[in-house]
């Protein structure tokens, strides 16, 4: 650590899914807020459907 060379820095092992910096220009990019909002709405939607059906 004395040189600022972090001992863990070289060993960053990613999770099961790996993401790289490179991205294609054609790729569809989604804002993370959109995904969270969709997840919430989807959950609430299913709860409402369940409540209505019973």
């Amino acid at each position, binding site marked *: *650590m*004395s*040189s*600022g*060379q*972090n*001992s*863990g*820095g*070289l*060993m960053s*092992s*990613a*999770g*099961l*899914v*790996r*993401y*790289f*910096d*490179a*991205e*294609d220009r*054609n*790729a*569809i*990019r*989604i*804002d*993370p807020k959109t*995904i*969270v909002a*969709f*997840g*919430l709405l*989807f*959950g609430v939607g*299913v*709860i409402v*459907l*369940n409540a209505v*059906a019973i």
Partner: protein
Amino acid sequence: MGWKEAAEPVLTRMPSVARPEGHVPFKRKIGWTAGILVLYFFLTNVVLFGLQTGGTGGDFYGQFRSILAGSQGSILQLGIGPIVTASIVLQLLGGADLLGLDTDDPRDQVLYQGLQKLLVVVMICLTGLPMVFGGNFLPPSQALGQSLGIGTGGVRALLFAQIAVGGILILFMDEIVSKWGVGSGVGLFIIAGVSQQLVAGLFSWESLGGQSGFFPTWIGILTGAVDIGSPLTPGGLSDLFLGQGQILALITTVLIFSIVVYAESVRVEIPLSHANVKGARGRFPVKLIYASVLPMILVRALQANLQFLGQILNNWWAAMPGWVGQYSQGQITGGLFWYLAPIQSRQDWMWFLGFTSQDPAAIAFRVAIDLTFMIIGGAVFAIFWVETTGMGPEATARQIQSSGMQIPGFRRNPQVIEKVMERYIPQVTVIGGALVGLLAVLANMLGTIGGVSGTGLLLTVSITYKLYEEIAEEQLMEMHPMMREMFNN
């Protein structure tokens, strides 16, 4: 024209979460991680629309649930199962070098990311469809089918659509945590599930509806409210250690915790010094658990997939011969698939206490198969993991070279560094992988608090440890913005 050119238009257009522009402050990172965690817990509590109430079949994942996250009958029924299975396929293809993708090339990186997503979607269909349409794991509501006029087939399609959306949501939530938060989403969901079970196993009391936890039971034993035999008789001792007292489970849990934390600190350190700056020294640690515990989840998932195959065969093949598999009430009780099933608890093998009526020789054979599978599988997947995540001798040699460091006493040359690395990394990886496999089997055999599997516990402890290291690193960078450049962020 190879497969790369053919698949390129599809793979490059897979939707992905936007990357943050510039540095994300540590507090915001924690915010995103916590937010995703809350969303995850919320979604595990949303019951599928169109599910027959009350009459749910057994959990499709069974004992594997604790490492595959999600929860039975909810939108997140699939959990991280599809991600793990897709990862197995990628690891095997990548490890055998069949893909021909160079993960240092930006073009190939894009393809790799796309392929990863596509495989997860394929796996969502491959595990989701048999789950809904084969067997009785998610029974559709007949009343709903009639009132909507779509029949049970239509309701089943509705169920599948919901769990598929849930599976894709998990994938994107993982991406958000990886890009905007701390650690990885998959790790976060595993910790969340296992910790929930652990806390329940320690503190839950009977009036909550589940089993009584460790502490309430002991309060009961000490005050005399829970009746156990005298500790001086064999029956009383068995109650204390194996039964309600759960002392053995507590010992195993604490032991696994300490072994993993200890093993994280066992390492071979290769000294480094800077080529141009005198006095600048560093060390490259080759940890005992070099490949981390994550490859373990791949081995377990492989076993889980074999068991699903058995269950599906059992449902569809009425005249299945007994040697393939015998089931009673959805539980495997004999045949080939019984031998392939991992030991999940004491009930699976402690014949001498009357927990199981199976033949001791057959049990010993099954334990031997489980051990072989986990130890060899652990080592093999650890090697693949190291190779595919750029932790192998060649990749680390290149990293050390490009950071301007060298091993003192050796020529400054990537090939020379690689030679030195080759003396340590492969051996340490194999030993670490095999050790983790052995630990997982032993923990399962002895039982753990809250019924979390040995693999689940191993994963949780080591992921939490990694998370702690990462948070410490983040905080260091917050305090010294200069550090950011050194970490190449």
